[in-house]
């Protein structure tokens, strides 16, 4: 969804009563819009009575926040040690080649954004991935494709 000032204001309002509201507010905005553009910084800063520098600092600190929209589905591949022990690096190379994009990149048709993740807590069934909202254990290209296909519907 494109950034929408009024909708953002409603989301900010719903979360601003919390103790230490900045992170929950930013998370909620990111969830609704799929990214946090420049405008978000100023709007959140003003609403929470914080400086733009502070909000910019928070947004850029956390890996989850994207400055621009990603593809329709995010494919998160675990890059941590337990998955490495089960061949995740070779899998990542294969996935990246098949999709024709590298880390943080989106396929040309806008279908998939490939993102690294450091541990999904599936270290006993590695390599692991999160495709959209679906967890995939003992992942290989075939199973990832099946999960991606489900997200298309």
């Amino acid at each position, binding site marked *: 969804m494109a950034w929408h000032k009024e909708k953002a204001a409603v989301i900010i309002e719903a979360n601003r009563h919390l103790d*230490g509201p900045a992170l929950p507010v930013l998370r909620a905005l990111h969830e609704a819009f799929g990214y946090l553009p420049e405008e978000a910084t100023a709007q959140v800063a003003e609403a929470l009575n914080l400086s733009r520098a502070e909000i910019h600092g928070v947004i850029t600190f*956390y890996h989850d926040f994207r400055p621009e929209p990603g593809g329709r589905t995010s494919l998160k591949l675990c890059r941590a040690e337990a998955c490495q*022990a089960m061949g995740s690096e070779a899998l990542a190379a294969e996935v990246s080649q098949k999709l024709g994009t590298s880390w943080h990149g989106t396929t040309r048709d806008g279908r998939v954004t490939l993102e690294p993740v450091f*541990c999904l807590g599936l270290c006993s069934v590695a390599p692991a991935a999160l495709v959209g909202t679906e967890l*995939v254990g003992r992942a290989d290209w075939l199973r990832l494709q099946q999960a991606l296909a489900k997200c298309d519907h």
Partner: protein
Amino acid sequence: MRPLTGPDMSKPTRIYLPADSAALALGAEALAEAITAEALRLGKSIEIIRTGSRGMHWLEPLVEIATPMGRIGYGPVGVADVTGLFAVDWLHAGKHPLCIGKVEEHEFLRRQDRWTFARCGIVDPLSWSDFIEHGGGQGLAWARAQGAAATLAAVTASGLRGRGGAGFPAGIKWRTVHDTAADIKYVVCNADEGDSGTFADRMLMEGDPFALLEGMAICALAVRARKGFIYIRSEYPRAITVLEDALSVAREHGLLSDCEIELRIGAGAYVCGEETALLESLEGKRGQVRAKPPLPAHRGLFGKPTVVNNVLTLATVPAILTRGAETYAALGSGKSRGTIPIQLAGNIRHGGLFEVPFGISLQELIDEVGGGTATGRPVRAVQVGGPLGAYFPRALFDTAFDYEAFSAREGLLGHGGIVVFDDRVDMSRQARFAMEFCAAESCGKCTPCRVGSVRGMEVIDKIVSDRDVNENLVLLEDLCNTLRLGSLCALGGFVPFPVLSALRYFPQDFRRS
């Protein structure tokens, strides 16, 4: 619970199927649908109950059928197996190659002594009646009856230490917060389990969330806090959903009548697992580490006295109060008392969760319990304690699983995760990855960690590309010392563990010529 109606609707057979992330990642959802459809087609009356996982992840999805003889297990079950399983009448414990017999008598479970994970995999995680039937709520009842002083004394006497990795005695931390005068105090649960090779917090939150909430309620009572936060990582979507639901059920049943608990979700920063960075993040700031002192127990969240404990630490307290602090303290080895939920991960045949008293050897865990590698190749190295833990070769597999035994060998027990690698691992890559990870996740506050990790990558690159190897090896050791002694927190302070252990035990991987 989904009761089905069919011709044989007199007594539905109970089928237990995990909705734990590991089971879901291996197709448990599609399996549930397939079982339901086949039962309907055959006119069999069944009731599927979604549980947490027993921790035998190589058998997931593990289906358990309730029979008069007990719960009979079948696993790993795929959608394609369902027709055949009904054909051998698995609802009456029919014989099948996937049958593992009575689940409770499985060797992997019989070898364990479960305190923290006693209910996990057995109960419906959101069923209050299951919780009560299996001993839930008794710890809090004990604490309410005996009062704060007795509760503090019991937690101290149990010898329980912080399961997040630092191993600080929980009783002392709680007492410090109790003794610090303040108008507001907080209990914060650190559920930012980011270490690769660990998933015990996730399993507990997905499989027995009330244990955690009860532990937090007990802690709040003991230190006189009235507000709690659970800070959970965003990479655990299933655990987040279960906890949200568990919080409303717990509220309904008065578990949180004296202490309100709020769930907060992280945003993908490993360093927020460090307690002071976590507090900063909860306050809505960048997750930057604070200098200590002041300790969070004196000045923590919003400057107020705060207990910050790991999921497992808090979730073990109810069992300790119920079954007895002395009984718990009698288990273990040396100064590591009680049980430790160990996570077997990476390239291992029998991966999963294994809770036993401290003191078991690495060799027993990896070869006997874990059954060696999944690939069938020889084990070359294991990393214990997450990305900041040391790599151990087989020569060190006699190390006992306890905090001090690992420290004595310049290793780290951490959160109890073991990642196994076979003989194809390149240890110079693992060492470089440790530095790379540190560089990516450094909060940037202290120079040794922020800059040192980047320099570390560069030096390792030079070594493996055969440039001034001897000089660069000396430089790498020196750099690691700077990181170890000069960093504010464990991220920079401990990254020398994996790097130097890789270098010490696997030098041939660094010297190419």
